[in-house]
């Protein structure tokens, strides 16, 4: 439990958004469980579970993803398996975008991770591609690319090309899969760090909303006809979620939303009405992840195909 409390402006802004506001606001004041993913490039779940059993470290598999685990033991970072990159400490919500396209990834040879650093989703996508094909991992921030490189090395990823570009200037096209995990106001991560509240406000949300509307068009344009794009954020603000998807649908006739479903994981409905703005009914296919539904961070997910 944190000594901090939520700003009144935050409570006012989101009072009517979740189905259960009381559970929502309460959940934000609780600590996030420790979670990790088995890196199938270097190990498998049975091997890791067996080793952790030898150490007396208990871990609970997620019902919705066989390689995901929670643990109450805070020392998983001091295990040999972590040292060797056989496990990757990663929030459950961060595992959702690659999981949403796991079937497509297993048969794709040209994939684009637009905003890749520090590489949690990149390393997971590489594993789901069996470390084959080409995964272009881009980030605009060169300092963050150091962390990306470190994580790719540690997890034994071979199939990546790392680039350092502003997505708005990227010219490469014809990717079979594009992941745009957009930079955002990160409201959904406050269970991990209340520091996000220090800079939170309408100005920040407006900035990211505008930026994401530019990025989603560029990300979509990099997609091959028939390809699949995932758009995700770790924030609650509809300005950075539904409004961005609405902008895509309004500006790209070939963009079609696909249903977001993850067996065993509870997903919330998107909003179609925000601060007087009505969004396309197509956006119903997207999904919200409320922290009180699965004891996770907050998240937003959409799956889009290019129909041409």
């Amino acid at each position: 439990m944190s000594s901090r409390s939520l700003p009144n402006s935050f409570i006012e802004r989101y009072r009517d958004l979740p189905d259960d506001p009381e559970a929502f606001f309460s959940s934000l004041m609780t600590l996030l469980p420790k979670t990790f993913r088995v890196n199938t490039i270097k190990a498998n779940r049975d091997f890791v579970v067996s080793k952790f059993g030898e150490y007396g470290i208990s871990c609970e598999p997620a019902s919705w993803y066989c390689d995901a685990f929670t643990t109450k033991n805070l020392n998983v970072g001091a295990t040999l398996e972590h040292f060797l990159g056989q496990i990757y400490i990663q929030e459950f919500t961060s595992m959702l975008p690659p999981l949403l396209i796991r079937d497509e990834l297993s048969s794709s040879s040209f994939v684009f991770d637009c905003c890749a650093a520090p590489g949690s989703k990149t390393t997971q996508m590489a594993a789901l591609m069996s470390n084959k094909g080409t995964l272009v991992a881009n980030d605009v921030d060169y300092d963050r690319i150091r962390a990306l490189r470190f994580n790719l090395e540690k997890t034994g990823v071979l199939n990546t090309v790392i680039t350092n570009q502003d997505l708005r200037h990227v010219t490469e096209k014809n990717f079979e899969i594009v992941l745009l995990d957009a930079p955002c106001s990160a409201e959904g991560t406050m269970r991990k760090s209340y520091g996000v509240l220090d800079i939170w406000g309408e100005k920040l949300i407006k900035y990211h909303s505008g930026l994401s509307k530019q990025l989603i068009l560029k990300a979509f344009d990099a997609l091959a006809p028939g390809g699949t794009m995932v758009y995700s954020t770790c924030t609650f603000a509809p300005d950075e979620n539904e409004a961005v998807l609405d902008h895509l649908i309004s500006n790209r006739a070939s963009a079609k939303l696909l249903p977001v479903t993850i067996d065993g994981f509870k997903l919330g409905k998107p909003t179609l009405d925000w601060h007087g703005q009505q969004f396309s009914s197509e956006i119903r296919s997207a999904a919200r992840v409320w922290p009180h539904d699965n004891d996770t961070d907050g998240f937003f997910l959409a799956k889009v195909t290019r129909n041409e």
Partner: protein
Amino acid sequence: MNEDLTFDRNAVLSYLLDRFGLPSSLFDDYNFYATEKGKVFLGPRRSISRPDKIVSIGLLCFRMDNAIKPTTNLLQIVGNHITKNRVELDQKNAEKYLLGNDLILDKSFLSNVSDGYVLMVYKDHSLGCGLLRGTVIKNQLPKAKRLDVKYW
């Protein structure tokens, strides 16, 4: 980074087969990319149309100075396939190795190995690269990877 067409892929594949028993088919899906500084990366066959935008590609797998030097990154990935020049450690020596120390090993640890680069193994784990000279293992673990592991 461009694939260096003068780079001798076959020489590296021969080294991996001779030294570690690694079949060349393990690397069929990948290209080797050489830099002017003698680094060789193992990466995807298909790159992008603007090589000038690439920061790095694949994984650093060799340094080519006077000889071919495999990296810990490479040996960790292919360790399960390595049949020659494996050094199986006990916990005490594995711990010393992971902390970055050189090792002086009893000959009982050194059967079926010869001087040169070796894979360091603890139980079922491929820990990384060492350089064997007689009964001494020179530690090749990068400084950034050295760590005090609490759970074995």
